[in-house]
């Protein structure tokens, strides 16, 4: 019982905190906040620490490498390729290991400098 009350208390504190904080979303031309982009677009599959290597939310469970600590430049280049062009038919995104569709959705609204920032953030994850 104590545990339940405590967790409810923690949850409500969380709510209060989220109301007071500054809202952020990628792709709105706001000053870039890489940690928030990572939390919103990447953490579901890659984990908050960048070390998660499997995900079962897709029709079939998928596995992949850990991304924490990877070279920022390589990361940025790859994410940009996954993102691809916004509209043109002749500008297809990368489909490395068949992850094209899964990577397209979270990256498509990121600007180039947002990608650079989030790559640096991932590279810095220990």
């Amino acid at each position, binding site marked *: 019982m104590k545990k339940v009350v405590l967790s409810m208390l923690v949850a409500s504190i969380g709510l209060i905190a989220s109301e007071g904080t500054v809202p952020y979303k990628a792709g709105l031309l706001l000053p870039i906040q890489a940690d928030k982009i990572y939390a919103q677009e990447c953490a579901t599959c890659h984990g908050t620490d960048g070390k998660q290597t499997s995900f079962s939310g897709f029709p079939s469970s998928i596995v992949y490498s850990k991304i924490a600590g990877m070279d920022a430049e390589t990361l940025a280049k790859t994410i940009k390729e996954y993102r691809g062009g916004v509209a043109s038919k*002749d500008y297809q995104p990368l489909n490395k290991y068949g992850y094209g569709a899964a990577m397209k959705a979270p990256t498509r*609204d990121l*600007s180039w400098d947002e990608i650079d920032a989030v790559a640096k953030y991932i590279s810095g994850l220990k």
Partner: protein
Amino acid sequence: MDNQYIEKMLSKMDKDLSKHGMSRRDAMKMAGLSGAGLFMGTTTGISAEEEKIVKSNAKGKIVIVGGGLAGMSTAARLKLKMTDPDITVIEPGELSVSYQPGQTLVAGGIWDEDDIAYKRDDFVPDGVKLIKERAVFFNPQENQLTTDKGQVVTYDYLIVAMGLQLDFERIKGLEEAGRALSAGDNKKLLNALGDDGICSIYTAKGATKTWEQMQKYIAQAKSGKKTKFVFTHPSTPIKCGGAPKKIVYLTNARLKEAGARDNAELTFYPNGGAMFGVPEYHDAIVGQFKRENIKYHYRHNLIEVDKENKIAVFDAKWQEKGPWDPVMKDFEVIPKHEKVRVPYDFLHVAPAQIAPREIAESDLGSAKGWVPVNKETLQHIRYENVFSLGDVAQVPMGKTGGSVRKQYKVLVDNLIALMDGKKLEAKYAGYTVCPLITDIGTVMLAEFDWTVKPTPSFPLDPTVERWMWWLMKIYALKPMTVYGMLVTGRA
């Protein structure tokens, strides 16, 4: 500023006028009268009667998102038409009310950037509250929105006037440019375009840069080197559909002036299949292109820029006659497209233009992102207390300052009618205007509406290029916009 050129033009004008037994003063008076007519917002341009103002006592909190020309002039007019309005404008940009139609003139070396820079804070009407933040989350069910600083703003009535964004990042090779607004320092964009012939007049800073680049490549042509000038027009709706052509004409004029035209090849690559939606103006423009020996290729959309090799890549579309279809009893039409690589020395990019993502992804935006409104009353199709005008509104052919000059009156009348519990009777008919600069010293005043027919304000052939419209563009339209609309809310 090219005073010498203007002087020369004026003396040439005097000579032309004296042939018709008219002095420059008379002519200016005529142009001035037309300008005054426009000040009053009359359609004939000749009758300049003072508009009778009946003020409403309606109550309610009005929030205007976006303090550009559309938002700020709407605030001014609400002040004019209401006894005690409660108005809040949300606008983060310091130069939000800058005079964008002047960007072509800056790029043509006729005006300076200072001539078009206007500060938001100088144009907030008395009693109107200003929030210098950005609205980023919209909750129209609850009549509230949240700013980027976390401030929650509630409203009774909302006017969306957030404009549009210049989507350079969809062009391969220019992704790092990101998306831009026309005002602001736009360093990221200018860095991405570089210093090697790529430019765009769609931002104020970019207009200055365009003039620098243009002079550089005119000098190259003058030195005897064959120089290719390439101009684009994108596949999305754009603000000021005439601007991509105006910059063609201004470049042409400056090349002729420098005596370098023979070494230059000018080519225009529009995504569409015509020069203008109105047949009369289309024909006139095609005539002007032929006369000036400017080439054009329809159905070309810029998708990539190879900066290193100076090649613009277009997606070119066409249709071919296919095999016989026995069911339809006709030949099939097969759409084809291919990449076309075009070398350039000077490349003017008219970027694709999109609604801000925060609108597109909110319940206020349509599938394409624009705010869906009844195109006549400018009321939102789902939320009756929401209105929209200007570039962000989903209104056909409506993305010009000239459209806003008609829209803001309609919107204000209808909003006040709604607040007073009356019927929304004011209707926008799609009027817009493109003072198409065809040379330094001449303008074709292309006015039209949803009838897709010329709707001239003056009893003159609208397809003829005239110096008088040049004078109007240079001297009358800016004061009409800045003081007529933004300050008084009357023009």
